[in-house]
């Protein structure tokens, strides 16, 4: 009977094209608007490291002002570390992998005189960054181990940068100039663009991944400051010049570790506890002993990648969908009750109330399918408009994947079934004898 009911539904929709179009439009507009917002929220709250959620941890140490807790994170600890703490933690051999990092930028030039120098976003990091975050390599690999602590001018390029500089060839061993200094290419990574950029949510969570990756050991040689957010509480750095900046209490380094077992985790906790106690003896870390190891999924929440505003917007979009459903209920009621005489005839010919109900619910489901498909188109238009208005910075999240498309159709069918249940129930409860005499 399902096929029969579907054919009746399509025939019925074609029989009242204007009313049907209005019902489809009501569902489509509601689904389109809500899916635009829900897609944004869904993409923004994605965890690109979900497959390593049980072993990766962002490290926080409470090195903040003894007189006032850090106010910008919900656990009242800075989300970045000082340079001196980061370099101290790097000496631990407990984690299976670990990486310290921050955002930076260079002017990039090459031997190709036709290529104009350009500004390239860079990540200053340690060699295990790539393995830690499963960054795929196209050519070569990460830099030498001593490059994390001594000035070795090596670079890993993104795929796009390699295409720009070398036409996509294997450029390992070739040289490029960064800020006028020669760097040897040791690796080229394949296309890789985690969204949100979970390893550095503090500096544009939806920015593109960097174009250049530079060893951590070059700080002193090039006096590298962070191009990202730097937060501090002490009145000045603890010393003169760049060395004073490195040894100061400003936080600007993101730090991640991979701990593959409960034992490693416990050992690392002990290590951090010991480190903080040691620092306390030296006059630092004057707040109560506190640190945090936070998994990627929790890190997204802690950093409020999906803000309260986004959540409210999500609820508002669902409320709008509800308004559209209420409109669809009214339209379906009008349509179904207009066809009540036909339902009366069907009842006289042997259809039970349940059969009449199911027939009309399936008709509303068909409206939902059409509404869902139109809703996807509207959502794509909505997301495209957001991309245009946001000047590209949100390109990665203003896109709809297959899961969200299926969700859109599912939401539309659910909405239309909800809208159709009451009208279908009403028409199935009408007394057929009322219509048989008067038709």
């Amino acid at each position, binding site marked *: *009977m399902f096929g*029969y009911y579907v054919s009746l539904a399509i*025939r*019925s929709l074609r*029989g009242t094209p204007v009313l049907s179009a209005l019902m489809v439009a009501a569902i489509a507009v509601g689904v389109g608007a809500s899916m635009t917002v829900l897609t944004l929220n869904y993409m923004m709250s994605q965890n690109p490291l979900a497959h390593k959620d049980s072993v990766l941890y962002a490290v926080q140490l409470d090195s903040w002002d003894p007189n006032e807790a850090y106010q910008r994170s919900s656990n009242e600890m800075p989300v970045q570390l000082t340079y001196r703490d980061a370099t101290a933690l790097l000496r631990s051999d407990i984690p299976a992998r670990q990486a310290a990092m921050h955002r930076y930028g260079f002017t990039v030039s090459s031997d190709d005189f036709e290529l104009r120098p350009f500004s390239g976003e860079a990540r200053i990091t340690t060699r295990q960054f790539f393995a830690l975050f499963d960054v795929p390599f196209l050519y070569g690999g990460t830099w030498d181990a001593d490059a994390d602590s001594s000035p070795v001018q090596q670079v890993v390029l993104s795929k796009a940068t390699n295409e720009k500089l070398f036409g996509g060839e294997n450029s390992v061993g070739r040289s490029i100039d960064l800020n006028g200094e020669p760097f040897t290419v040791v690796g080229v990574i394949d296309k890789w663009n985690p969204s949100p950029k979970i390893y550095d949510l503090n500096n544009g969570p939806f920015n593109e991944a960097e174009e250049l990756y530079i060893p951590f050991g070059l700080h002193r040689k090039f006096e590298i400051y962070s191009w990202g957010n730097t937060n501090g509480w002490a009145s000045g750095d603890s010393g003169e010049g760049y060395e004073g900046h490195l040894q100061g209490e400003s936080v600007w380094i993101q730090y991640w570790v991979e701990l593959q077992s409960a034992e490693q985790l416990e050992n690392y906790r002990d290590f951090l506890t010991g480190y903080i106690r040691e620092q306390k003896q030296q006059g630092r870390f004057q707040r109560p002993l506190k640190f945090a190891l936070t998994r990627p999924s929790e890190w997204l929440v802690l950093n409020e990648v999906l803000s309260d505003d986004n959540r409210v917007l999500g609820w508002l979009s669902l409320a709008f969908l509800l308004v559209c459903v209420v409109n669809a209920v009214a339209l379906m009621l009008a349509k179904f009750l207009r066809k009540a*005489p*036909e339902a*009366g*005839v*069907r*009842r*006289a*010919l*042997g*259809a*039970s*109330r*349940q*059969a009449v109900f199911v027939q009309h619910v399936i008709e509303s489901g068909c409206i939902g399918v059409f509404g869902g498909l139109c809703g996807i188109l509207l959502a794509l238009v909505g997301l495209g408009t957001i991309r245009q208005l946001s000047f590209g910075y949100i390109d990665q999240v203003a896109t709809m994947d297959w899961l969200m498309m299926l969700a859109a159709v599912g939401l539309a069918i659910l909405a239309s079934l909800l809208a159709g249940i009451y009208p279908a129930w009403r028409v199935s409860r009408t*007394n*057929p*004898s009322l219509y*048989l*005499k*008067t*038709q």
Partner: protein
Amino acid sequence: MLKMHNIRKSYRTDTIETHALRDFSLEVNEGEFVSVTGPSGSGKTTFLNIAGMLETPTGGEYLLDGDNVSHLNDRQRSRLRNEKIGFIFQGFNLIPDLNLFDNIDVPLRYRGFNSKERRRRIEKVLEQVGLSARAKHLPSQLSGGQQQRVAIARALAGEPRFLLADEPTGNLDSLMARQVMELLEFINEWGTTIVMVTHDPDLARRAHRNIQIVDGQVSDLQRAVAAAEAATA
């Protein structure tokens, strides 16, 4: 075949209670052609709706083929209606956006026949009513008499044992009315029991038996008394 004993049906609004049928008793035997007449508002259509299980009586007992159907649920009544009863209405009640084939197909779908069996039955009844060539036409493309023949074909497709006709010729001119009446008589000769409500005394006389309903009660006292006696025996 059909046996009603002390059937009551009343409709209640906030202020008024109307008794459509009062202590209504009637028996119709297998193969009979019974006409039902009576003034407007006497309860003829209410009787027909209860007989067709479209409405439930307020009280009394209704036996169809010996089974008490007064207390069946909606699904059971719908199945019985589909299997045993055919309806013919004054206004034809064809579904306007379905062609003749699909109109006749409706009760067969609810019966659960496969497509081959449905097609066989539809083609057979269309041939019986002389409309085989019009199978793909819409009801609006037919005359009133032709539409009523389609309605009869639809009622017959399920091979019911009991046909309920509510003023089947009321919307037809005399020539078409005669043709439809002849068709009903022909169907009755095949063995189908027919109860026909009509205002036309000439048509009523052509039935085996005429029942008059007045103020919600059967005025064929002789048969009513006999039915009541049989019920109490």
